[in-house]
């Protein structure tokens, strides 16, 4: 598959996944099983982010150290968010 066809396929997948996220809400899954639906929606967001970073930002073709840098930033953000939220549960 040429790069252009790959990029186009990725665009279609991203478009569909965004639609699926909205559909999860409109189909009432948030009312039926909120936290499962929440987890599914967030997993889809992470999946989309990984694909955009990996292919559109070409992270897949950069040295692995660049990916570690970005994962480091993500880890810092998640550490703050989860530990802070847990501290008041």
């Amino acid at each position, binding site marked *: 598959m040429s790069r252009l066809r790959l990029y186009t396929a990725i665009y279609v997948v991203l478009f569909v996944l965004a639609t699926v*996220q909205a559909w999860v*809400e409109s189909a009432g899954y948030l009312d039926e099983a909120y936290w499962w639906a929440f987890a599914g929606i967030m997993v889809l967001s992470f999946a989309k982010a990984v694909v955009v970073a990996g292919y559109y930002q070409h992270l897949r073709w950069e040295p692995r*150290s660049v990916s570690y*840098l970005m994962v480091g930033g993500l880890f*810092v953000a998640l*550490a703050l968010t989860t530990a802070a*939220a847990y*501290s008041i549960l």
Partner: protein
Amino acid sequence: MSHDHDHGHDFPPTSSVKRWFLTTNHKDVGILYLVTALFFLLLGGALAMLMRAQLWSPGANILSGGAYNQAVSAHGLIMVFWFISPFAFGFANYIVPLQIGADDLAFPRLNALSYWLYLFSGLLFVASFFQGATFNGGWTMYAPLNVPTYMPNVGGTTVVLALIMFVAAVTLGSVNFLTTMYRMRAEGLRMRDLPIFSMSILLTVWMMLFAFAALLAALMILASDHLIGTTYFTSDGGSLLWTHMFWFFGHPEVYIVFFPGLGIMAECFQTFTGRRLVGRKWFVLSMVLVALQSFVVWMHHMFLTGINLQIKTLFMVTTIGISLPFDLMVFSLIYTMIKGRIRFTTPFLFSLGALILFIIGGITGVFLGAVVLDYEFRGTYWVVAHFHYVMVAGATALFAGLYYWYPKITGRMYDEFLGKLHFVTYFVGFNLLYFPMFSAWETPRRVFEYQVGLAFWHKLATVGGFLLGASFLIMFYNMFKSLTAGEEVGDNPWDYATSAEWAVASPPPLENFPGIPSYAGGKLSFRDEPEPTADGGGDPVADTAAGAAADGGPATDGGTTAAAETATGSGVADPGMVATGGEAGVVTATHEADSGHADHASIWPFVVGLAGFLAFLGLSGVDEGGVYYPLTAIGGLLVMFGFVGMARQPFSAPEPAIAERWPFEGVENMKLGMWIFLGSDIVLFGGFIGSYLFLRVANGWHHWEHELIPAAHVTFPGLVNTYLLLTSSFAVVLALVASHRNSKRGVVAALVATWVLGVGFLINKAQEWLHLFHIHSDAFPNGWEIGTNVASSTFYLTTGLHGAHVIVGLIMLLYMIPRAIKGAYLDGDDEMLEYFGLYWHFVDIVWLFLFPLFYIV
């Protein structure tokens, strides 16, 4: 000074005032940092004197209560932000490129911009004193005291904006140093063999990159509470949110402040004991460990808040844990003294003093890491004494650095007697100031009066404070006098100093080295400039063995080769301590040479810094109207003018022809800089999203969606914007594909499509916002505006920040589209498209999380 000429470029000598406004050279910028930081030391010190005068007796009336609060707050903020770290970065600017074998930092104009943003942010702080009153809520700026309800003066807002400007300077500096240190090291210089000061700066900038991004998020939210009426820090959980965000930054900040000093201590211990640091590898690993651990200890500052016991216990454990690597470092330094032969020069005395202060500060800090003891000590002078012992330990080491590198920077030696006199008065003064506070620990912090029974200790402290202040008169006299009267020095006035800055003249020439520095042979040598070859690479030929220092070949201070071990095995090192050469798997790139000469002058960083000052000063008072409106407008326009000027100015900062680039080979400087910036931006958005999630938990997760958000806030506009942004990302990808196919029409069409889709995103968002502003329902009869409740505040501010990123991208496109029409970005010249793509896709990725969080769940 000898580094006056720019190889025919229009670059004034150092005796010209114009030079200091234009310069982008790392050594000049380093000097600017040092001088400016010392100015802020005097300002912060004067405020401290006022406080100590007030505390001479329990009921003294020298300052009013409000003035005392301002003095305490401004003293803390100025010393922590505008003195200690910038002072350290004066040395980092001057010394790190020399130690790693680079001609300059990777982005010299960005480096100058960092400095001017730093200077003008400090002047903005100074301006706040003249706006009724400056910030008066303590240096930790706790909520809700930090919001306008409790701090109505414009000056309070100005300080928040000054801090934002300062953080911008820090972030640019972090990106610059990281890119430089990973991409511009001399051949054969492995990361692990970086001289210990450079290693400390490397770890410092890593911590800065992430920690200051979290602070930036907190400050932007605070500025928004001040200026546009969001309600983050006055809502349920708002106070706790501030403490989380501040201390998530604040604890790494302790090490950000201390690490450069630690690096200088280690340098001085090595030089003045003549002994390589004992256990150097473990010392470095300990520093790495502390840098990582520093992000998981912040809640020990919050033991007295309402966080749960489980998390307090966990953070007590992590806090005790972080003291362990420090133990190892302290023992390493002590053992280096034992194994070496000490020469009690002024830099060594300050280094030793720093170690002693740090040990006292560290031990007294462990008390505060224990939950039950912290219940007793929190908010008392125990804390004041403890953190001054830690912070000033770092500053003491920085003064060691000032004496240590003074001959390198000025070419002349300071007066040794006056240096030692400074140390004695400084050390006695400091301990007389702070040690009595452990006895008077029951004094409440930040309060201008205290129990009568504690007066003796406070009088001692005040005497010590003035003695400490007086000691700087000796230092400044010594520095000024020695500039002209000091004995001239050669390349290296210190026996056993081995890092590369001592291999060049004092002061070094403008472009640092007489050839291309290389450690490939095991110690520093200089190669000829590469001859261009057919494939664009170089063919460097070893030329001059350095040996420039009289006492042997300069080297890094790392390395564990047999030669080095032999050299140090006898207890006192042979001066010729050497570094190892190349590392298996490390690639020496030779294909990115730019034959052009480096430029060293640009006025635009100064223009942008000045413009930022005017814009923020105007912004501070927009609620007041009057002169503040035109000030904001003029400043804003000047900022844009400055950036356009910078973009249009031809400025050459060539990447080195030969350099060690592990682990970022093949990622050119600009691209790596962009990636590092995005790493920091992740934390910035993480701070905003984390704030939203925290407040939603604090207010009740489902209560939030049922009670605080109107029914009119629906998924559809968010979904449309997701489609628009995804499509625009795809359009940027198409632009790159068209560039590879040399299709000018394709590039232009794709960029225009990106711009149109981005504008569409903003229009859709504006329509949605206007609709929500003007809804009329039973729950929200007056619309759902920014300050309606905490949910609306988080929604508008977070998506607004994202929208601002979109606007920045659209402005970039407005610059790029005309260039594309003129035929740019073709024939392999696609870097700018790729860099823009990195940014735009990142904005897209952020939206991929904002969409579900703010529109679906």
